[in-house]
């Protein structure tokens, strides 16, 4: 190797050893080994199983039709300006939070490992999440929901509490309410009348907000998914990445660049011709059943455009989604802290608990300090959003901090458990994988 070449500089040419390795690799990949029982079945891997388990076209959707007439869209009013600095949730929020905390501990955490392996959330669990009514809080009473005012902070508290159970399952549970929240915030009277009744019923459809695209340095304000105006409406074309519950989703809200003028949001029913999904299992968030959404010349009616294609609406969507991801990061980072504290107190090395060593104890302290910072930034962004104040700065900073410190906390969590952190007997390795998502994902959840 030439010393002055950096990473990505010179690629060594394949020599005899390289060729032998390549042959060995191909051999290892054939089915011959399996036929002779030379490989344990489990080695075939979950990845292949989930990959073929997915349908090639979008899930068949119910017929969404307006059952009631609205003369104007129903919005939740901005929350009142509170006047005072206060970190105490109101009574209703405390009640909602304690309910979700219990749900996360009893329903999400015990199922998390299995759902992570299976790359899907159990249907029964999702039904229970519906019963919990988390979607209803963000929907106005006039539309059958429970909301009386804009409640981004409540959304944050719910996401945080859920992610304390499991981030992947939390995303699966919260994905539909991202769509219903978007419809409440930006849908017109016809869109609301057509789609929202399903979200306040007993059988809430799987639905997803699809913003992410599969490429490096993805910028949600520069989209490769294109939308063109046609005589009858729009045609969408492109690929969306890391879409939760993609295979089951009956309804998508898709971000696409409209006529080269910037991003806009479109309501897409999964049964529309040209909509295809494929599984996209990832490092983490596996329980959310992530998939790619392929849009191949998908023709949409003129009524599919959300928020009149306004750039302000789209920017708000990106920011509110980031705040939701921050809340998920806070919940999972808290799970890490709550898990490592008893571990380092119980684990004895050199004759005393490892927590008696500053090298261990200071890492725990830093997790606590950075986690509290993440939480406060997230709360501030959400609180400004619901009060109708500007929050671009606060949402952007919350995302930066949660991306950076969330990853650090996942990393340190595994480190503090040592080898035990690396094995699946403990949940910390899963949190490590999940927390890496913060900072790169866009869309999917919304507060």
């Amino acid at each position, binding site marked *: 190797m030439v010393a002055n070449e950096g990473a990505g500089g010179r690629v060594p040419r394949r020599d005899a050893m390289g060729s032998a390795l390549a042959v060995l690799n191909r051999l290892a990949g054939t089915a011959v080994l399996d036929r002779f029982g030379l490989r344990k079945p489990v080695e075939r891997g979950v990845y292949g199983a989930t990959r073929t388990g997915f349908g090639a076209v979008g899930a068949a959707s119910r017929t969404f039709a307006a059952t009631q007439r609205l003369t104007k869209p129903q919005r939740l009013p901005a929350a009142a300006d*509170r*006047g*005072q*600095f*206060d*970190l*105490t*949730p*109101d009574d209703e*929020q405390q009640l909602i939070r304690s309910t979700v905390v219990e749900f996360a501990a009893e329903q999400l955490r015990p199922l998390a490992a299995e759902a992570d392996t299976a790359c899907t959330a159990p249907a029964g669990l999702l039904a229970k999440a519906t019963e919990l009514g988390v979607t209803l809080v963000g929907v106005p009473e006039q539309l059958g929901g429970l909301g009386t005012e804009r409640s981004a*902070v409540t959304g944050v508290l719910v996401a945080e509490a859920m992610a304390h159970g499991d981030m992947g399952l939390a995303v699966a549970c919260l994905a539909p309410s991202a769509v219903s929240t978007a419809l409440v915030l930006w849908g017109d009277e016809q869109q609301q009348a057509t789609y929202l009744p399903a979200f306040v019923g007993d059988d809430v459809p799987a639905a997803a907000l699809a913003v992410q695209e599969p490429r490096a*340095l*993805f*910028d*949600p*304000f*520069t989209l490769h998914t294109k939308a063109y105006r046609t005589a009858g409406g729009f045609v969408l074309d492109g690929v969306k990445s890391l879409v939760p519950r993609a295979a089951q989703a009956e309804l998508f809200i898709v971000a696409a660049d409209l006529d080269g003028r910037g991003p806009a949001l479109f309501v897409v029913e999964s049964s529309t011709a040209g909509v295809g999904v494929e599984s996209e299992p990832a490092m983490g968030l596996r329980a959310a059943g992530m998939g790619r959404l392929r849009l191949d010349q998908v023709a949409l009616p003129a009524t599919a455009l959300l928020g009149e294609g306004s750039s302000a609406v789209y*920017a708000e969507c*990106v*920011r509110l989604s980031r705040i939701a991801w921050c809340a998920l990061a806070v919940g999972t980072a808290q799970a890490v*802290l709550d898990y490592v*504290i008893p571990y*380092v*107190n119980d684990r004895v090395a050199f004759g005393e*608990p490892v*927590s*008696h060593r*500053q090298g261990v*104890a*200071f890492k*725990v*302290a*830093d997790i*606590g*300090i*950075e986690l*509290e*910072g*993440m939480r*406060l*930034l997230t*709360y*501030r962004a*959400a*609180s*400004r959003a619901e*009060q109708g*104040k500007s929050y*671009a*700065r*606060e*949402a*952007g*900073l*919350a995302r*930066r*901090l949660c991306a*950076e410190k969330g990853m650090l906390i996942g990393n340190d969590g595994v480190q503090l458990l040592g080898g035990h952190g690396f094995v699946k007997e403990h949940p910390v390795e899963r949190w490590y994988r999940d927390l890496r998502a913060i900072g790169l994902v866009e869309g999917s959840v919304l507060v």
Partner: protein
Amino acid sequence: MINLEIPGKFQQLVDQAHQAAAEFFRPNSRKYDQAEHTYPKELDMLAALLDGLSAAGGGAGAGGVRRGSDDSGKGNKNGANLRLLLGTIEMCWGDVGLLLSMPRQGLGNAAIGSVATDEQLARYQGKWAAMAITEPDTGSDSGAIRTTAVLDGDHYVLNGEKIFVTAGERADCVVVWATLDRSLGKAAIKSFVVDRDTPGFELVRLEHKLGIRASDTAHFRLDNVRVHKDNLLGSPEINTEQGFAGVMQTFDNTRPLVAAMAVGVARAALEETRRILEESGVAIDYDRPAFAQSAAAATFLQLEADWEAAYLLSLEAAWMADNRKPNSLQASMAKAKAGRSASDITLRCVELTGSLGYSENSLLEKWARDSKILDIFEGTQQIQQLIVARRLLGKSSSELK
């Protein structure tokens, strides 16, 4: 109801403190950085002004907050702790060293404000009090101090040596930590108010420092200094159950204020850096991903995110004090985050602005020097980490050393 914005009723105070910082501190910043140990006489007028504001309930310095003040009624409170914190942030946006030199706003005043009896409080009203804890052989381990206090009739006789006494030369009196009985450990440590002109209380020298050079840092020798027993702050009883809690309680009030100082100076550096970057054609965009912007913009966003965490943690600690919630954990969290972030932010701002920031033509290099002390005094970064770790892990100081 969760809301992390500053109440409108404090806006006037913030504006006043900001203008004082902009009109009195900033124009004198470089002057007293260079003329170390010269008394900043401009501050006398400002201090008089602040005394007036203080009387009107709008003080803006490190004057200390009395437990139980602003304690009327039920429900969420935004009171004296938060007000003081906000004032401190603004003043340190102006100049940390000059704030520490503000007459009658010393850390000793905070100690008196926190633990003195009503009689003592009245007696020291209007006095400028410095704080003397550290000794040549005792830094963070303040339980190991050797300065002794021996009761002799109505007086205590103090003997020992004290270093790093901020505003020690200029103050009217110094709050000195001394032990009544070294064999009884931390519980025997008490604080005594010593008037500067007491016989035997000798100023040895003033230190030359990396930063906050406008603030004098004194070294004292106490040679049979006699102080009246009424000058002992708090209770003279040695309560081994309560241990160190009495004197350490001061820190729950002062640590958020030091965090606020760090937040103030770091904000000054961020604002100036942003101005210079924007002049150089670097725009900061909060919506676009950091990695889709220039490396300078991405760095700036990271620094500002750390700053925001330090700021909000400080507000949280003060808010808890206002609402009489125990805040030792949050005070240390705020101090730890703000202390390390301020050093990181101010140093990186110098890097981002190149020779513009490194040169004495700008205050950026000065802020990068001034900020360092904030991660050291009132408990170093490592002490804060220890406190946070002990609280989170449920460990005593003998278990987690």
